[in-house]
């Protein structure tokens, strides 16, 4: 095992880790040594091939097929230089005031979250796409919503020079999406932060980070790690864990911190999602143009769901349709005619939904659909079907039904056709992104893992700065809020630099 030493080690390079790296980078000019350890590879621009299975293998944990313990849901977790910001669609929504107020974290105000969010709205080029760049898949969603009297909204997105490849979820081949891989991490590196890719953190041993650098090329693409393959013990004065809502709690569990942190791994939540499909009589522009330009959130408080436009790739679409054989293939054969809507249920913290680890220390996600989530998915499916039909679809696929194909003749009966009992393991393909919680913020070890600055209770040199801090569902796409919280964590570390790092370091 090789020994190296840094002052600050940041684990993970996504919305949380990338932001912390940038915000701490000015300390490098005072001689502070900072390293970011990232499990995935750094891809060259030419590596973004847009090939679904190849890119998923490289950029997602388990190729995008990470399963919950009972196999009822897959979880999408990005990895690589930039983490999940490589593979999101760049949709940029600020946290609603009621969500931050309901979190009720002492010391964390909505005004502060909003102020920090606005900083990254500017920094990451968040704006509305012009009308002439909106494809028909998105236009039809707007048309359907407006015919039904729904309040449809346009997503601000963080792109620069978007050509409309529609390949966002496989990593933008044109480097248009302004994730941390394009903005914060390059800034951090210019400031002196080192980013070590292909470096998987195995456990924390006190202030030593035990990690393994993989010499193999994931999927044969990407740059090699700057470090030679092998195991490393990295001594640090401050450690900031930013591995996301599954990997951060799992790392702390592997590091035997659960005895002093009874809430560790608890409070996990996510947005269980269905990909819904409507078929039109003729081809529409769907796999060209930004895939996610509009959303409908007027039902979030009454029925617990959000609808968003989306466009997925052949395999992801195929697995999302229920059933198999001729009926299934009939939808796939008319791929250019398909309109898609993503239905997100806004789940809330439940006592049994949590992160654990298996004997090998791998994360295990215990998650069951609550009756409320099943109702949200049911109501959301019905609403989406109505939007498809109002937009002119000839038939719609509703996955939770004995016969998932509903033709427009039966549009008025869709309420009776969608069947809540199908939301059971193995019957409907439910995937979740926006994973949250597991190291929630709060006041004491009885209700949380960290304080409102992300400092782990009882461990003054250990911080968390990612979506695992969320004490409950964010109810929207989370990355801006993750960045806002990471910014807050980083500022606190700078303010306490003298105590944390010793010597004459001051960087408030």
């Amino acid at each position, binding site marked *: 095992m090789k020994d190296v030493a840094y002052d600050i080690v940041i684990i993970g390079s996504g919305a949380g880790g990338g932001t912390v790296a940038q915000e701490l980078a000015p300390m490098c000019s005072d001689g502070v040594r900072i390293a970011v350890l990232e499990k995935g590879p750094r891809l060259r621009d030419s590596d*973004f091939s*847009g*090939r*679904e*299975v190849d890119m998923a*293998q490289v950029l997602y944990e*388990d*190729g995008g*097929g990470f399963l919950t313990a*009972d*196999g*009822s849901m897959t979880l999408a977790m990005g990895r690589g230089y930039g983490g999940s910001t490589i593979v999101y669609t760049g949709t940029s929504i600020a946290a609603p005031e009621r969500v931050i107020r309901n979190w009720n974290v002492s010391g964390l105000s909505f005004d502060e979250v909003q102020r920090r969010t606005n900083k990254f709205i500017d920094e990451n080029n968040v704006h509305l796409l012009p009308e002439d*760049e909106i494809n028909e898949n998105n236009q039809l969603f707007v048309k359907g919503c407006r015919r039904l009297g729904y309040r449809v909204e346009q997503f601000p997105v963080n792109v620069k020079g*978007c*050509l*409309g*490849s*529609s*390949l966002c979820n496989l990593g933008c*081949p*044109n480097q248009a999406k302004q994730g941390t891989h394009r903005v914060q991490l390059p800034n951090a590196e210019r400031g002196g932060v080192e980013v070590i890719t292909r470096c998987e953190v195995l456990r924390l041993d006190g202030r030593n980070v035990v990690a393994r650098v993989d010499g193999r090329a994931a999927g044969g693409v990407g740059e090699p790690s700057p470090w030679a393959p092998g195991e490393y013990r990295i001594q640090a004065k401050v450690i900031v864990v930013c591995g996301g809502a599954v990997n951060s709690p799992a790392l702390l569990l592997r590091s035997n911190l659960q005895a002093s942190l009874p809430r560790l791994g608890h409070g996990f939540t996510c947005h269980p999602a269905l990909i819904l499909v409507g078929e039109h009589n003729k*081809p529409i*522009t769907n*796999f*060209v*143009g930004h895939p996610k330009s509009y959303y409908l959130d007027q039902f979030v408080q009454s029925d617990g769901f959000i609808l968003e436009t989306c466009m997925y*790739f*052949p*395999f992801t*679409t*195929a*697995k999302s349709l229920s*059933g*198999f*054989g*001729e009926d*299934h*293939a009939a939808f*796939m*054969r*008319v*791929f*250019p005619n398909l309109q898609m809507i993503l239905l997100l249920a806004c789940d809330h913290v439940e006592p049994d939904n949590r992160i654990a680890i298996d004997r090998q220390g*791998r994360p295990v996600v215990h998650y069951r659909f609550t009756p409320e989530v099943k109702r949200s998915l049911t109501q959301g499916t019905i609403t989406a079907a109505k939007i498809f039909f109002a937009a002119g679809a000839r038939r719609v696929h509703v996955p939770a039904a004995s016969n998932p194909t509903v033709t427009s003749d039966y549009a008025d009966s869709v309420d009776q056709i969608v069947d809540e009992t199908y939301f*059971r*393991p*193995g*019957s409907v*393909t439910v995937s979740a992104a926006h994973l949250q919680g597991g190291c929630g913020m709060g006041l004491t070890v009885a209700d949380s893992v960290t304080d409102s600055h992300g400092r782990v209770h009882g461990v003054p040199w250990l911080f968390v700065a990612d979506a695992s801090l969320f004490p409950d569902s964010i109810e929207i796409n989370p990355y801006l809020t993750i960045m806002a919280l990471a910014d807050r964590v980083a500022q606190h570390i700078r303010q306490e630099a003298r105590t944390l790092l010793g010597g004459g370091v001051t960087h408030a």
Partner: protein
Amino acid sequence: MSTSVLGSLRPVFRAIASVVVPEADRFDDAAWGELESLVEESLATRPAALLRQIRLLLRVIEWLPVLRFGRRFSSLDAPTRTQVLAGLQNSRIDRLRVGFWGLRTLVMLGYYGRPAGGESIGYKPSARGWEALG
């Protein structure tokens, strides 16, 4: 030691795949090879216990029909194969349902994950996006 998950279970896997995606019934050996290599690659880093479960499920699907139809799955005609798989899909036993869902997902990964699978349904993405439309 072979690292193949499908190995000697390829015949039953292909029989299942041909029902899940009917177009696969017309595959030649090269197309099957492409589909199966995508499946194998996607499983290469998964836990050994999961791979054992997949192999066990393939064996169960191959032999279960003997009890009812007197023949192995790979020897059944297409409608009967469909009937068997629909039974698994709608099973009251969670593990069977989830297992079949996983198998079905692997077949779809192999079929639609091939560039030819996407092209066959009119999916022709381009990094140039709008420019490529002309």
